[in-house]
């Protein structure tokens, strides 16, 4: 595996490392809040992955129809614009993730009220 392979796709490496950090925290941590933080890192890594797949360097434009106002209408060549769809998907996914986090925090409050602790070992 050469160095170009790693540097050329650094965004994917970062997403995988972040995702594994989150995954580790969700599975190995015994404190419920730490698990939730791990869950958030895990989800954020996926957002990063999607957004980075849609990014483009060096003067990318937006997907609109050029011209208008008397000029000849033409659709911008797909190679020149930045694909907005992954970002839009992630807007939806962020909403889903925020609500998951909210439900999970509400559950943590209920757990704390009933057991007076958030350490999994002490609850069980």
């Amino acid at each position, binding site marked *: 595996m050469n160095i170009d392979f790693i540097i050329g796709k650094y965004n994917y490496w970062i997403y995988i490392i972040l995702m594994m950090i989150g995954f580790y925290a969700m599975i190995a941590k015994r404190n419920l809040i730490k698990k939730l933080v791990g*869950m958030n890192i*895990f989800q954020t890594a996926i957002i990063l*992955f999607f957004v980075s797949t849609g990014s483009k360097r060096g003067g990318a434009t937006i997907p609109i129809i050029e011209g208008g106002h008397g000029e000849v209408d033409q659709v911008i060549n797909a190679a020149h614009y930045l694909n907005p*769809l*992954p970002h839009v998907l992630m807007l939806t996914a962020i909403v*889903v993730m925020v*609500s998951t986090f909210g439900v*999970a925090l509400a*559950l*943590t409050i209920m757990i704390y009220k009933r057991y007076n602790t958030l350490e999994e070992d002490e609850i069980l």
Partner: protein
Amino acid sequence: MSSHAPVLMIIVPLISSLIVLLAGLWRKRLSYPLALAALSASTIAAFSVLFSVMDAGTVRYRLGGWAPPWGIEYVLDHLNAFIAVIVSSISLIVGVYSRKSIEQELSGDKIIYFYPIYLLLVTGLMGIVATGDIFNVYVFLEISSLAAYALIAIGNDKRAPLSSFNYVVMGTIGACFYLLGVGYLYIMTGTLNMADLARLLPPLYHSKVVLVAFAFFVVGVGVKIALFPLHAWLPNAYTHAPSTVSALVASTMTKVGAYVMIRIMFTVFQPSFSTEVVPMASILGWIAAAAAIFGCVMALAQTDFKRMLAYVLIAEVGYIVLGVSAANRAGMTGAILHILNDAFMMACLFLAAGAVMYKLKSVEISDMGGLYKKMPLTMASVVIAGISVVGVPPTAGFFSKWYLVLGSLQAGNWQFAAVLLFSSLMTAIIFFRIIERIYFMPAPGPVPAAGGQRNWAPLDDIPASMLAPILVTAAGILVFGFMSGTIVSRVIQYAVPAGW
């Protein structure tokens, strides 16, 4: 009106969840009738879609009039129109049942919030079933899961929030894996529409990215349907939830997840990919076989009736996946027929468990001795559903198991046929143990004064709104048993991928 039925069966519960919330805050007693009206409307829409699919083939509905692949499209063929009818009917039946049960099991004003979340859960499930867009499936998957997390924790059981919390963590991992699969396919093809993906993917089948995407899909959905060894969240969550919620989620959520698995494997990817490029029969088949045996062994060890049913459910999920992994006509027919049968068997058993809870305030098996005297009709339903899970002929469970065994044998996997028969024997032990307890053992506690007097209850002494759904599901099991030939020839044979 009927041209909009595919979207109405989702929109109606979605919008009424808000209306039911507002109406419930104004007058508490309005929640139940309004929720039932919404569920009935959704069921009628689902039936009308199924009938138009049976008449004229696949129904396509463009949301907002945008043409696919840019817009989101609802595609209903024989497979998902059938599942939509199952999901909406079960949620209506359980909805009728819910009234008295949650009045007893929920405290204070929680009933006001119960019905809106219930409707959101149904919205999510119907959406997963109807949509033809893989990202849309993710969104609906999370709507239904979020509603399920909340419903499981809404009860008064002390352990419910922690069970629900573990479900949140596991469910989120599953959903995120699914989302990653969507992302990988999008990188490769630039589309999210299922039909478009099916067209663009075949030249890319040997790309590693597509293989990874497939793996993420299967594992992600595997968590959501509690396929062994990813099942750890299920027994606690389904045991500690209120009875109504257990009945709804047990009978619908895992089935809808199994539907997503079938859809991804055989529509988004072609059957040839799922059987030849990926050695699915050997991987998923063995996992499913392990699930069938593990579920039965664990069920045998339980003392709590609801927890026992939860483990039986894990075994049932194993059966469905076993049928899918056989990847031939008989196996697939068995899997789809078992989705229907298992939805009704699980609904009947969990509803009966709820009735026992209502009556005895406990679902310990040891407390159920002699219960046939107090609740003859409910216990008769338990017997029907129980022998259907075992697979005794006139009941529906026999026919789907027949197809599953046939599918395994035709695929040349005699070992999986043996597993099916072995786990049927195990379920026989499980349910005959319960039946013996109910019919032949004395009730616990002080023995009533002897006098030879018949002390049968005139009827089961539980509200009619609870008894009727139990009897309807039990009758359903018998009716589907007698009608299984019709169901297979009218609906399921068209749902099996072409060419098998």
